[in-house]
């Protein structure tokens, strides 16, 4: 059961001090590790702001590779609420039957293909493809666009051995600029066009604002979805009984999705910039310093979750923060939940078992902590029913 396990590297620090320390490009971060502190801090946007210099609330910081403000992600209330209200209906489209039918077709195709092969490298050849194709639905762009995005590799901002790669980021930014120009000249019913045509407080969104929403949409849902999908495959490889149970009791699938998101916590943490001298978890936090809300640690907080290091597939009370918390909770969560729901259903219906043949873990270096967030590569064999 070791290959699919995601350990909790934060436990000791969470119990002893409640915080962790991380240096990040000479802009240190105090990590908040307890669920209640994470929630309280996420909610307190006045003292812990998102609307800092673009890129600064992300860890590792992107201030050196990005000037465009991600929207609504890097905006504080009340402006945040205006933007959020504007984009929210679009990002709820995954609840529509047509959307779910198209996503089901895509995911079934990928699962069927995996079943037909002798082996498959899941990160590149399953999860990245699944994520990219699904993104064409969220953006309402042609299916063929997915090939371009798959060609960028697994990380939009990262390439191997280099946690922040400005050249790679430019590929995305240039692509988005081109798409905005295209949509501006020839509007369609894709997200670019809808945003360009949107009004905020009586004025049209600027191209820079549209770019901000699009960067968020591309970047926020890439590594996270890829890790959630890949980790699910690894988990089911070592827990065939869970696949069988989902097939017998499909009504627990929604709970299983929430539990896997809690256990995997695909986004380890997210930063905030402190606006005044204050305290976090009884530790001083200076104005203009950074804290982070460590979702991954909060989701293993034993004061809230029973048996936090176990996947309890039908966990009934599961107040996890895998999609963040409060004002800035994940805009793409509806899409992500549908991907997971449909993936679990498809696997449960079609797959008997999965064998892990070879793997290399993806370990995040958080200075004080090393956290497995997923896999660099994992080769498996899917066995049909």
């Amino acid at each position, binding site marked *: 059961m070791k290959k699919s396990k995601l350990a909790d590297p934060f436990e000791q620090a969470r119990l002893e001090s409640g915080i962790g320390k991380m240096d990040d490009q000479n802009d240190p971060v105090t990590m908040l590790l307890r669920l209640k502190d994470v929630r*309280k801090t996420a909610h307190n946007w006045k003292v812990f702001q998102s609307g800092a210099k673009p890129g600064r609330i992300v860890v590792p910081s992107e201030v050196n590779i990005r000037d465009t403000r991600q929207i609504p992600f890097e905006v504080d209330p009340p402006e945040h609420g205006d933007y959020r209200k504007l984009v929210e209906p679009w990002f709820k489209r995954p609840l529509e039957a047509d959307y779910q039918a198209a996503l089901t077709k895509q995911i079934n195709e990928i699962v069927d293909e995996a079943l037909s092969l002798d082996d498959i490298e899941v990160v590149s050849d399953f999860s990245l493809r699944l994520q990219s194709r699904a993104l064409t639905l969220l953006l309402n762009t042609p299916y063929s666009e997915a090939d371009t995005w798959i060609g960028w590799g697994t990380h939009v901002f990262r390439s191997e051995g280099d946690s922040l790669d400005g050249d790679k980021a430019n590929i995305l930014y240039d692509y988005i600029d081109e798409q905005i120009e295209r949509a501006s000249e020839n509007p369609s019913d894709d997200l670019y066009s809808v945003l360009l045509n949107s009004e905020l407080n009586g004025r049209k969104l600027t191209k820079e604002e549209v770019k901000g929403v699009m960067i968020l949409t591309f970047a926020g849902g890439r590594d996270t979805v890829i890790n959630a999908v890949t980790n699910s495959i690894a988990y089911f490889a070592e827990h065939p009984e869970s696949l069988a149970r989902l097939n017998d009791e499909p009504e627990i699938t929604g*709970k299983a999705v929430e539990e896997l998101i809690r256990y995997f916590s695909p986004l380890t943490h997210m930063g905030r910039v402190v606006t005044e001298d204050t305290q976090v978890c009884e530790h001083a936090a200076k104005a203009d310093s950074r804290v982070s809300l460590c979702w991954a640690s909060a989701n293993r907080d034993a004061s809230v979750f029973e048996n936090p290091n176990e996947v309890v597939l039908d966990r009934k009370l599961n107040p996890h923060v895998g999609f963040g918390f409060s004002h800035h909770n994940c805009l793409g969560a509806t899409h992500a939940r549908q991907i997971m729901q449909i993936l679990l259903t498809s696997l449960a219906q079609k797959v008997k078992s999965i064998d892990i043949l070879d793997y290399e873990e993806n370990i995040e270096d958080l200075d004080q902590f090393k956290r497995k967030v997923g896999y660099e590569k994992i080769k498996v064999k899917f066995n049909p029913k």
Partner: protein
Amino acid sequence: MAKITFITTDESSITLEATSGSVMELAVQNNVAGIDGDCGGVCSCATCHVHVDPAHLDKTGDASEIEKDMLELDDNANEYSRLCCQLEVSDQLDGVILRVAQ
């Protein structure tokens, strides 16, 4: 069988009948405006927030610690607040009136 009345933020009223499941599920299945139930009912998203009519508090009982912790950070929460994914439909709820929170 329990009759459950929702009053939405635009003051329209809808009364639904059910015998099982959670109140959130009932609301979502019947498109009660303002009840989203994003997390499917595991007390993680707080998108099913209602205020229990004060005259009906005995029907719903108290929120659990975990639910209270979620509500504590909701700006629209008060002493009558509940997350209705945590309310199981039963005869005890019959006649309850729930106001959908902002």
